């Protein structure tokens, strides 16, 4: 590997890292604004014009708070928990293709840090590790509410990961590749997977909500019964990390939904452009889709009440998994028919 490529990738990593953090930061602000709009309020508007400095104020507040570690907790695991959450939510951004190739000073720059040939598998793997942050944090707190939250998180993850995996396999079968880049390129222009796989999309979307612990599946934190669940005992920036990780994973999940079902950075009429114009437009298209899905996530949060735990399990095991499996079967048959295997 030549040094130019390493520098290029490092710059890309730095940019993506800061963009993820920036978007997560402003997602917290935007969430409060959206909540306010849905409830006929104004929302935060005191810090700076329209309150746009609110995330900074929140950050400063988080840092200034007393960093408290309960004496009965397992200190190292307690510190490790939020770290794992944050790390895993950020690392998935490495394999997301952000746009068409950009040409800078005659070099072609792929807007993707690493094009794994097992990209989507990597994401599934990292997402399942992400739940360990919550589990370890909840366990180490040595508090019954935290433990409940942690247990709920893990059981919820097990029941939704399956359906999610099956719906991802459906898409992989259609594309014939696990690489995110291939999946995106397969949906060139307006040839998006959503038009072929609406059921699969619904299953995946519900699972994504459950994976990111967003309402209506936010049972691991569940303010009303578990007083915050796994982060009950956390304070200061450790709590901030947990909350922040949720927003980062919301951003990443939106990106993955856009990639798998809404054509990633493809947009209708993209054949009329080429070169850097195409690259920039594709980035804009991709981010528009991401922002739309972040908005939908918030929209759902402020519309739906939280599921009961048995309803959640029922939905996961008895509805989503069978639906996803049947969908997989039908997709397989159709593909086989098209290829003339019968």
């Amino acid at each position, binding site marked *: 590997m030549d040094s130019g490529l390493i520098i290029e990738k490092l710059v890309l990593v730095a940019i993506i890292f800061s963009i993820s953090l920036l978007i997560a930061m402003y997602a917290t602000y935007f969430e409060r604004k959206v909540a306010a709009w849905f409830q006929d309020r104004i929302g935060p508007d005191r810090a700076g014009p329209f309150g746009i400095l609110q995330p900074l104020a929140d950050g400063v507040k988080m840092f200034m708070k007393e960093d408290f570690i309960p004496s009965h907790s397992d200190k190292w695991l307690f510190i490790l928990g939020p770290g794992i959450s944050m790390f895993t939510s950020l690392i998935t951004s490495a394999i997301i293709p952000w746009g068409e190739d950009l040409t800078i000073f005659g070099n072609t720059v792929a807007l993707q840090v690493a094009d794994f040939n097992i990209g989507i598998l990597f994401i599934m793997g990292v997402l399942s590790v992400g739940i360990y942050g919550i589990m370890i944090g909840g366990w180490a707190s040595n508090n019954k509410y935290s433990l409940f939250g942690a247990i709920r998180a893990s059981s919820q993850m097990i029941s939704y990961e399956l359906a999610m995996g099956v719906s991802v396999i459906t898409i992989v079968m259609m594309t014939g590749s696990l690489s995110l880049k291939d999946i995106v390129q397969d949906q060139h222009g307006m040839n998006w997977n959503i038009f072929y796989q609406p059921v699969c999309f619904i299953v995946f979307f519900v699972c994504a909500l459950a994976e990111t612990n967003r309402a209506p599946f936010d049972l691991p934190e569940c303010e009303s019964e578990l007083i915050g669940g796994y982060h009950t005992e956390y304070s200061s920036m450790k709590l901030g990390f947990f909350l922040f990780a949720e927003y980062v994973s919301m951003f990443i999940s939106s990106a993955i939904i856009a990639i798998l079902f809404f054509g990633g950075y493809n947009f209708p009429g993209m054949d009329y452009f080429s070169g850097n114009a195409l690259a920039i437009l594709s980035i804009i298209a991709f981010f528009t889709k991401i922002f739309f899905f972040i908005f939908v996530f918030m*929209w759902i949060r402020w*519309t739906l009440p939280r599921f009961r735990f048995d309803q959640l399990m029922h939905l996961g095991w008895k509805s989503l998994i069978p639906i996803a499996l049947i969908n997989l079967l039908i997709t397989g048959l159709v593909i086989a028919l098209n290829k003339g295997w019968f």
Partner: protein
Amino acid sequence: MQSLSNRKKVVSDKPMNFMEKIYLPAILGGMWITFKHLFRKNNTVKYPEEQRVFAPVYRGMHVLKRDEQGRENCTACGLCAVACPAEAITMEAAERVKGEENLYREEKYAATYDINMLRCIFCGLCEEACPKEAIFLTDRIVPSEFEREDFLFGKDKLVEPMNARIDVTKRQHTGQRGTK
């Protein structure tokens, strides 16, 4: 029984049919309702800049009244402190000496009079209990402070200043008891 509002719905626990079971129509309906709220006018009153109009009998910050000649009404009888369910009021009485007739209306007066605004629940029982029409709740809001001690309001903050009299004529307990 006949419904008065015509909006009565009979609750039933019949099993959900297919459309209800897949949740989606109900979810989309709910999301449509919240979406319409995005474009509604907000109901926010931006407090420090704008203030909601209060009723004349609003129970806000207390005032210790003076009479027409500017003498303090309170006679430190302690009835307000006894009535107070939150035990927010404390006072010390003192005897009026010669030459103070223009300051205090009664022969006994409150040398100190404190209301702990963090204890007070703004029930208005002190106003109801007062035989001298000395204490009233007003439509002013207790200002926010950073320190706990600053919420202990003494006579300096409670007694109405001579040049800025506070109108309590609209309150329920004004003019109910004869002033002797």
